[in-house]
């Protein structure tokens, strides 16, 4: 498709220049973080002069990853976000299926209501939630955090799954019903397998959001050993000085990488699910 008039080629050039400048802005933090994480303490003080360290070292990563506490934080983060994401999707499946297949009054209102719930900051509900959970002795439990993740992630999951279910042809379901399947069998045997990309996208997105979540575990989990990585690096940052910047950079990179990698690898699938959701929404 390239080619065309002179004006079009100037336009191409302008596009590249604009995107190039923006790419510098968006890439700099990642590049710099990597650079810092590979430096020895002495090179930290050299600033931009040592973007590519003269004596690159993996020692910072080795020190971070050999700390058993750090591995526990990573594992906690993974565990909480995966369980929370799974719960959100599990809760969203019946709701999304109903919104997609059944005609009931005020369906639009329900969908808008779900969206409205999404707009409430966790900050707002956490103050009373903390008191309640304290009263019910539910603080410091992974299950409490997972339950809240499930509730927080559900609205977005409902929207994404509804769009995914809408794309499954009604005829296939009708054929199954003619063959004697009931609604539940249709859902589990036909619709869910066909909506697998949508399910996966919803799960990954919920999981990535949970991975970033700071407030919920910060408030509900008081014991050091229960913390996920997001809370741990915040605490770690309070304890570092200039001489340990390279360690903080390495820790940040380790904390950021899982989410970024998953997203980059699966981005085609996730972006198309998001776009489909955005168009319908």
């Amino acid at each position, binding site marked *: *498709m*390239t080619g065309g008039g002179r004006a079009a080629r100037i336009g*191409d050039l302008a*596009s*590249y220049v*604009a*995107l190039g400048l*923006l790419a510098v802005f*968006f*890439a700099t*933090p*990642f590049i710099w973080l990597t650079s810092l994480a590979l430096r020895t303490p002495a090179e930290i003080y*050299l*600033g*931009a002069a040592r973007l590519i360290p003269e004596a690159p070292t993996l020692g910072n990563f080795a020190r971070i990853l050999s700390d058993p506490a750090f591995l526990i934080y990573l594992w906690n983060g993974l565990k909480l976000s995966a369980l929370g994401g799974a719960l959100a999707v599990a*809760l969203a499946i*019946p*709701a999304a*299926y*109903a919104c997609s*297949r*059944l005609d*009931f009054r005020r369906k639009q209102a*329900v969908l*808008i*209501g779900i969206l*409205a719930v999404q*707009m*409430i*900051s966790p*900050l*707002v509900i956490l*103050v*009373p939630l903390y008191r*309640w959970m304290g009263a019910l002795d539910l603080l410091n439990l992974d299950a409490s955090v997972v339950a809240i993740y499930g*509730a927080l992630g*559900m609205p977005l999951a409902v929207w994404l799954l509804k769009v995914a279910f809408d794309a499954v042809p009604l005829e296939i379901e009708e054929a199954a019903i003619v063959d004697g399947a*009931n*609604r*539940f069998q249709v859902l589990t045997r036909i619709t869910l397998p066909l909506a697998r990309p949508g399910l996966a996208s919803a799960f990954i997105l919920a999981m990535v959001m949970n991975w*970033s979540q700071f*407030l919920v575990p910060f408030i509900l989990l008081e014991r050091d050993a229960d913390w996920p990585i*997001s*809370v741990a*690096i*915040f605490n770690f*940052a309070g304890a570092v000085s*200039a001489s340990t910047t390279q360690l903080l*950079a390495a820790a*940040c990179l380790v*904390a950021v990488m899982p*989410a970024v990698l998953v997203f*980059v690898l699966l*981005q085609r699938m996730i*972006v198309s699910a*998001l*776009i489909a959701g*955005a*168009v319908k*929404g």
Partner: protein
Amino acid sequence: MLALFYGVPVLDMVRLAFSDATLVRPPEDYSFKAMGVLLRDPALPQVIGTTLLFTAINVVALQVVGLAIALTIVRGEARGLRGMTAFRTLVLAAWVVPGIANGLIWQMLFDEAPYGTLNSLLAYGGLGPVAWLSDPQMALVSAVIANLWQGTAFSMIVFYAARRGIDPVLYDVAALDGAGPWRIFRSITLPLLRTAIAVNTVLVTVQTLNTFDSILALTGGGPGRATEVLALFTFNTVFQNLDLAGGSVLALLLFAISMALAALVHGWRGRGAA
């Protein structure tokens, strides 16, 4: 079976709506006293001012940059230019960085020591060091930059989706009529993206209002209260000062603003459907 599939989500919705409604109801030991004390708090006007400024700048900047990126990518894809997906991926990668990590990363970039990233880069250009985080006004700018880095992806996706939803025939006709790029943008793209922009404005406003973890890690609200937005003020009131009553009032304020904006979205959608 029908009743089951109808009932589960509706019950769940009732549960959610119910929990939200009661959860924000203030605790029992609450009286108007706390509200009065809080409203007379000299810090509150400043916090509200900072919040308005921070939110307004972000909402405009996020959307302008997001729209520009989305339109450029759509154009690039139509022209078959390479690297569009790679660029989109880069922007999205910033989006999934946890808020706390975002604050910490930018704190390293804004490091004011001579060896700090941006200052040492500026020194190459012969420019003096900038007090990124210790100057009250500059700190707010820095917070906006960090938020822009992370938040642009959302607007980009929304506008990208909306732009691709526009019938290409309109553009073909405009090209036949000899309309220039600016005229096409003003007469076709902008009017047809109006709903998307309206809805996105509200969504981004709510998101920005609720942002506090990146600011917490970046500046902690300082210097002084220069970057302390309402959400962070709420967090500090509850978890630094352990003032649950005051925090509840602030949370209620935050909730009311969010709901008012959500109602606005509903209004827009209703009008669009009619």
